[in-house]
C-alpha cells in the first residue's frame, strides 16, 4: 500500500480478512487502500467492518469521515467526525500529564529478536547449527529476557553435544523466571550429566518445592541418589512418591531400581515389570528386569 501497489495490497488484505475475519486492523488497511484507489464505497464498507469489530477504533472513524465526505453524504460525515473528535479527546485525556513519552524502542528490539529466532530455527531445521547459533545469539542480545530464545539455544547446544553451554542457557531461564520449575528440572539433569551432583540435587529439590504435585522432580532426585549410590532409603521414598503422583514407565522403573538397591526384590520385580509393560521397547528396563529375575 505504501509503495503505491494498491491492487496487490487489496488482494492480500482481502485474503487476510477471509483468514482472520476478526482483524479490525486488516479491515482498516483495506479501507485505506480502497480510499487511495478512489473506490469510496468499498472503503466505507471496510471501515464499517473495522468498527463493527472494534467500536472505539478512532482512526477508522476518521476514514469514514473522509469517505462519506467524498461520497457526498455530509450527514454521515458529520456524525462520524463527531465520534472521531470524541474518541480523540479521550485519547488525549489519557496522554495528558504523562511523564514518559511514548518509546517503542524496546518493543522494536523484541520484535527484531523474534525475527532472529525464526531465522535461527530455519537454519537449525536445515542442519546449519552454527548459523542457527549466531542468529539466536543476536536474538538474545536484543531481547535478553526472551525465554524462547534461551530454550532454542539450550536445545541447540544439546544437539551439538555441548551440555555445559546448554546448562548456562537453563540457568539464564531460571534467572528470568525463578518460579518456573522446568528450568530447575533441566539444570538438575544437565548438572548430573556434568557430574555437578550438589547442583543437581539442589535443582531437583527446588523443582519439588515449586511443583510438589509433579512426579518428575521426585523421580530425578531419586535417580540421582541411585546413580551416586548414596541416600538410598530417601531415593526409594522419593521414587515411591513419584509413582503415587504418576504411574509412568519411568517412575515405575526408578522405583523398581530403588527397591532393588535397598534389597526389596519383590517390589523391585513388580515395579520394573510394570515399567516394561508400559514401555516394552525400553532396553534399560528389560535389562534391569532380567537382572532382578536372575537374582531369584
Amino acid at each position: 500500500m505504501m509503495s503505491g501497489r494498491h491492487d496487490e495490497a487489496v488482494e492480500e488484505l482481502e485474503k487476510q480478512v477471509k483468514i482472520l475475519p476478526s482483524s479490525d486492523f486488516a479491515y482498516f488497511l483495506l479501507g485505506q487502500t480502497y480510499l487511495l484507489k478512489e473506490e469510496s464505497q468499498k472503503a466505507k464498507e471496510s471501515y464499517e467492518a473495522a468498527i463493527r469489530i472494534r467500536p472505539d477504533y478512532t482512526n477508522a472513524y476518521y476514514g469514514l469521515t473522509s469517505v462519506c465526505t467524498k461520497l457526498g453524504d455530509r450527514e454521515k460525515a458529520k456524525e462520524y467526525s463527531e465520534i472521531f473528535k470524541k474518541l480523540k479527546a479521550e485519547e488525549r485525556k489519557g496522554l495528558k500529564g504523562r511523564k514518559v513519552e511514548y518509546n517503542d524502542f524496546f518493543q522494536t528490539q523484541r520484535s527484531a529478536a523474534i525475527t532472529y529466532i525464526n531465522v535461527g530455527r530455519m537454519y537449525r531445521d536445515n542442519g546449519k547449527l552454527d548459523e542457527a547459533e549466531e542468529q539466536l545469539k543476536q536474538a538474545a542480545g536484543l531481547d535478553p529476557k526472551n525465554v524462547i530464545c534461551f530454550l532454542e539455544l539450550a536445545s541447540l547446544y544439546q544437539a551439538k553435544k555441548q551440555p555445559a553451554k546448554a546448562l548456562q542457557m537453563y540457568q539464564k531461564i531460571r534467572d528470568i523466571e525463578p518460579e518456573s520449575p522446568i528450568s530447575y528440572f533441566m539444570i538438575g539433569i544437565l548438572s548430573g550429566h556434568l557430574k555437578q551432583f550438589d547442583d543437581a540435587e539442589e535443582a531437583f529439590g527446588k523443582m519439588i518445592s515449586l511443583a510438589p504435585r509433579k512426579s518428575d522432580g521426585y523421580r530425578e532426585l531419586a535417580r540421582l541418589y541411585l546413580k551416586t549410590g548414596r541416600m538410598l532409603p530417601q531415593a526409594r521414598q522419593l521414587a515411591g512418591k513419584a509413582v503415587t503422583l504418576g504411574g509412568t514407565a519411568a517412575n515405575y522403573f526408578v522405583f523398581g531400581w530403588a527397591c532393588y538397591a535397598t534389597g526389596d526384590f519383590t517390589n523391585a520385580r513388580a515395579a520394573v515389570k510394570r515399567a516394561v509393560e508400559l514401555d516394552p521397547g525400553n532396553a534399560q528396563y528389560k535389562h534391569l528386569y532380567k537382572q532382578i529375575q536372575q537374582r531369584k
Partner: protein
Amino acid sequence: MRTSASGCQSSCFLRKSAAVGLLCLYVLLSDCVSASIRLRDMTKQTGIAFIHTDGSSGKRYIVETVSAGVALFDYDGDGDIDIYFLNGAPLRGTTVKVPPKNALYRNEGGWKFTEVTDSAGVGDAGYGLGVAVGDYDNDGDPDIYLNNYGFNLLYQNNGDGTFTDVTKKACVANGRKVGAGACFLDIDKDGDLDLYVANYVDFTYENHQIVRFNGYPAYVGPMNYYPTSDTLYRNNGDGTFSDISIESGIAAHKGTGMGMICADYDNDGDTDIFVGNDVAGNSVFENNGAGKFEEVGLITGLAYDLGGTAQGTMGVECGDYNNDCLLDFYVTSYQRDLATLYRNLGDGSFEDVTRVTAAGDGTLPHVTWGNSLVDFDNDGDRDIFIACGHLHDNVELFDNVTSYHVQNILLENTGGERFVNVSDKCGDGLEVKLSSRGAGFDDLDNDGDIDVVILNSRWEPTVLRNDSANDNHWIQICLGGVKTNSDGIGAHIKVTAGDLTLLDEVHSGRGYQSHYGMRLHFGLGNRDRVDRIEVHWIGGGIDVFENIAANRLLTLTEGGSKAVSE
C-alpha cells in the same frame, strides 16, 4: 519443439534487450536527475559568523529543542535579499560571558554578507523562536515581528537601514509565552496588515519536566504540558494593534502551535490560517471575509494524516505542486511520521497524497523542520526541500536509526505526480550534516534561481548557492500594493506562459517559524515569454499584465498597467 525453443530464445533475447534498454534509460534518467539541481555550500565564503545557541545547560527545557527560525528579506531596499537569524538566550542555569542575540546580515552582493545587527538596531537578546516580516505601517519598508519565549518584539523599519523597537506602543508583546510561528495577514481586507501569533505550550521553569529513554535523559514532548490558544492582533491603522483573539474565534481553540502559514486555500478572496500543531490535529481557521474564523481542520482533511493520526507538525508550507492552480500544503513532522503533502481537491478539502507522490521520501527516520515548495531547477514545477535534525542531542544513545546531526533532504518534482529523492546527487550543499531548524529560500545573488539559508541548532548556519545548470527560463515578481498592503501579502498571482499556468501567493511568515519568498519566483522551463500575469489583490481587485519577456524581476503595482522591470 525446435520452433518452441527458438521462440523461447527469441523471447529471452527480447527480454534481455528490453532489460538492457531499461537499464540504459534508468542510467540516463538517473544522470538527468543528478544533473538537474545543484546546491553548493557557500557558508565559508559568505563571511557569516553567526552561531546559534539554544541557551541550554543540560537541564533540557523543552524550548531548547524548537529554536529557531530565519528571515530572508530586503531590509534596506537595495535589491538584495538580506538574512536575519534568530537566536536563543541563556535559560535558567546557563551563564554566558557575552549574551547571544539575533543577527542581521546585509547582502553586499557576490556572496559576501556584512553583519549590521547593531547599526540596524535589531539585536534582540530575547529567546528567539519565530519571525515574520511585513510592512505593518504601510510606509514602504519591511518591519520585523519576533515571536519569542518571553515577550515578543516588533521592530519598525525607519527606512534608513535602522529599526526602532515599537512593541510597547504597538501593544504586541503577547505576554510571557512560548512562541512559535507568526504571520502578517490582512484578515478583514481593510488594507493594513494584522498579525497572527502562534503559541506552543504552557511551559514555565516551574512545570519543567524531563524523561529518560533507556536510562538516558531526554526532552519531553508537548503532551507533557497544556496546549495554549494563539493570539490574533488587529491592526488599528495608527501604529497600534488590538488583541481580537476572542471575538475572532481564534481563542476558542487551544493547540500546540509550531510553524504556520496564512493562505487563501479555498480561493474565496480572503486569507485563511493554517497552524501546525505538535502531536495534535493541525488547526485550520477559515476566514469569513470579515476577520471571523471557524476552525475547519478536520473537515478540510488537514488536521490529520491519511490514517487519521495527529502528527508532530513542525513546518508548514504552501504552494501549487501539481500546477492545477490550487494551493496545496506541505508539513514537516516528528520522527516516524512522514513529512506530508496535502493535495487541494478544489472543493475546500484536501487529500494526503504523500505516499502516492513519494513526497515524504527519506523523512521517516528524522525530525523534519524547515520546508519549501520551490522550483529549484526552473522547470516549471515545485520541488521540496526539507531541513532535518533530531531534537534529542543524545538520540544516538537510545535510537540506532537516526542522529542529532543528519543530512537535509531534497525531493525533485518529476512533473507534478511524483517526487524523487535527489539528496545524494545534487552537490555538496546536501552533504552537510547538522541539526537544522528554520530554513529560508530566496534568490540571494539575483541570478534567477532560488538559494537556501538554513539555521542549524547550536551551530553556524548553512548557505547554499543554487548552481543548477540548465537553460530554463524564469520570472520573479514583487508586488506593490496601493490600496492593499504595500507588499501585496495575500495576493494571488497567476502566470501563464504557453501551456504552463502557475499559481502563487504572497506570504509573510511560513515554513518552520521563518519568513522568506515575498519576491515570487516562477520557473518557466523552455518558455521564454510570459503571455499573461493576473494579480488578484487581497481586496478583490484584479490587474492583468501581458506579453512579458522572461528572465527578469518585475515589480507590479496595484492598479498599474505596465510591469516594471528591475
